[in-house]
């Protein structure tokens, strides 16, 4: 968070190296890994949406599956019912995510901290039943299968992989750019000193609505990517637990917004259930322990470093 401008510039160069490696991966690893990595990119965008809310709004959401579901179903429904490809459905998903983010931010504009967190929890709970009960359009439990290619003629597995990567890189770059913008700076001030931001012309309600709108939009892009890269859209991907896992991903990446950080969070959200799929009961235990571990690490690490530094200084 406390990056200076040069550091930001340096990190944007540094993040091209992982991008180059990721771009080369499909030629090295097998098809199943390509698929998993595509999901991993999509989930990274979701983690980024949650972290964005924390970094720019100072608020925690446990309901971002609402936005991911929105984006995923926008793509899924347009694809399966109308045969519309991503070129049109992704902008629509973004628009829907931003609008509903704003629509949610308005009634909750005066809520902060745990009050907002509890409200987002209610949002997450409402998602699965909305999907199941709107089955005439969402396909209910069965879900939807996204199969319209983005670029005709290119192998579908590669398309799913590279679209995920491209979306992630684009979103991460846009968010990195936002940090330097006028709006980004005023939001950061509004987070730490709302009264000061007010005194310089940024209303608190505006700040909240802007942050929720952006975060909702990023969430919807995550969903759109999930739908295409993961090929199916079904209620199982947008449960209450999935919403918590996105938060866990955000916490384990220390709410980072850089490409590498969100990739760590996204990989966590994607890979842990896959690696532990044989013993499903261990998944929540593992997630819970990681969440606690990272929080306690964040709490004790500065202290441990200080003690170590003091010892070194003494010796």
């Amino acid at each position, binding site marked *: 968070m406390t990056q200076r401008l040069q550091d930001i510039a340096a990190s944007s160069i540094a993040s091209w190296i992982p991008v180059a490696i990721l771009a080369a991966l499909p030629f090295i690893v097998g098809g199943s890994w390509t698929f998993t990595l595509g999901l991993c990119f999509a989930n990274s965008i979701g983690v980024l949406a949650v972290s964005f809310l924390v970094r720019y709004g100072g608020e925690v959401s446990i309901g971002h599956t609402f936005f991911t579901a929105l984006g995923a179903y926008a793509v899924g429904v347009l694809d399966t019912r109308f045969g519309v490809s991503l070129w049109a459905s992704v902008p629509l998903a973004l628009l829907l995510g931003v609008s509903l983010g704003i629509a949610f931010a308005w*009634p909750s504009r005066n809520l902060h901290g*745990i*009050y907002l967190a509890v409200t987002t929890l209610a949002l997450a709970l409402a998602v699965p039943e909305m999907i*199941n009960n709107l089955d005439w359009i969402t396909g209910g439990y069965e879900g939807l299968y996204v199969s319209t290619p983005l670029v005709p003629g290119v192998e579908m597995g590669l398309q799913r992989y590279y679209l995920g990567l491209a979306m992630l890189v684009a979103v991460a770059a846009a968010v990195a750019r936002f940090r330097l913008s006028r709006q980004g700076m005023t939001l950061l001030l509004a987070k730490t000193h709302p*009264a000061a931001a007010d005194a310089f012309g940024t209303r608190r309600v505006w700040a909240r609505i802007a942050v929720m709108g952006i975060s909702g939009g990023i969430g919807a892009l995550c969903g759109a990517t999930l739908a295409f890269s993961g090929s199916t859209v079904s209620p199982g991907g947008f449960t209450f637990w999935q919403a918590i896992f996105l938060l866990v991903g955000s916490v384990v990446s220390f709410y980072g917004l850089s490409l590498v950080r969100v990739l760590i969070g996204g990989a966590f959200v994607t890979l842990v259930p896959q690696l532990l799929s044989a013993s499903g*009961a261990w998944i929540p235990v*593992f997630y819970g322990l990681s969440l*606690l571990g990272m929080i306690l690490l964040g709490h004790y690490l500065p202290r441990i470093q200080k003690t170590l530094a003091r010892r070194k200084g003494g010796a």
Partner: protein
Amino acid sequence: MTFWDTLLYDLFPLIWSGMITGCLYALGALGLVMIFKCSKVVNFSHGNVAGLTAFLVYGLSSGVLLSLSWGAAVIVALLCAVAIAFLIYAIISPLVFESDLTSTIATLGFGLIAQGVTLLLFGADIVALDLPIPRFAFSVFGLLVTGYDLTVLAVAVVTIGALFIVIDYTKLGIAFRAISENPFAAEVCGLNLRSVHLFAWVTAAILGVIGALLIVPTTFLSVTTVATFMLQAFAAAVIGGFASLPGSLVGGILIGVLMNLFTFYVSPEFSSTFLLGIILLALNIFPNGVLQRVGGSRV
């Protein structure tokens, strides 16, 4: 059917049974509010830990783990709940004094662990937990009143009454109130924050076990039953103002009745969406009851 018949046969029974479940939501909400009032932490592990203890009662009395008598199983489960509350508080207490939001996220971690442990010990199947609840029923003015209803009412009244007596008259209860009003002043006066926090966590755990055990007869016991039940408790706490104990009682009964009416008259499929609507509406209509910050601007 006339209007009055509808009222008699649908509305009154719906309100009555809504009030009964509402009492249980209130028990859950009281636990959440007690912890929140003194430490500003929302305990997201409440439902899953209470669910785990309900499963423990099942496991200890049915022969899955042990074959204890029903009473002994409940006592062991209560002790476990208290021990878990101690453990959770011990781990997060350094965080509580740093950031209420971080410690709230940490409780999500404990919730995940409790859920995982329940799955590991008892699996994902639905089990039937039989409690020795008197099975009788009689009708008052056409209203069917069951032994279960009266048991829930009696337990809720006794538990909540005992809780309010403890808070009003015991030393710990008075310290709890003082710290909820002003933690800094209370600590300066020599009150121990940690012991009061522990008191709240332990009380909440006990209330959670009682609520979980009493909700089970209305449904089956599965890994999600109690967690789902606690979500209604969350809504009850929110409506009650989250920082008010009497408020959560009112909120619990209100949620119980409203949910019953909604599922019967409108749609049983959109109950969570309805809950979201209620929460948003309540927070906007009574922001001052819920939000202390809204009144004065901080500069």
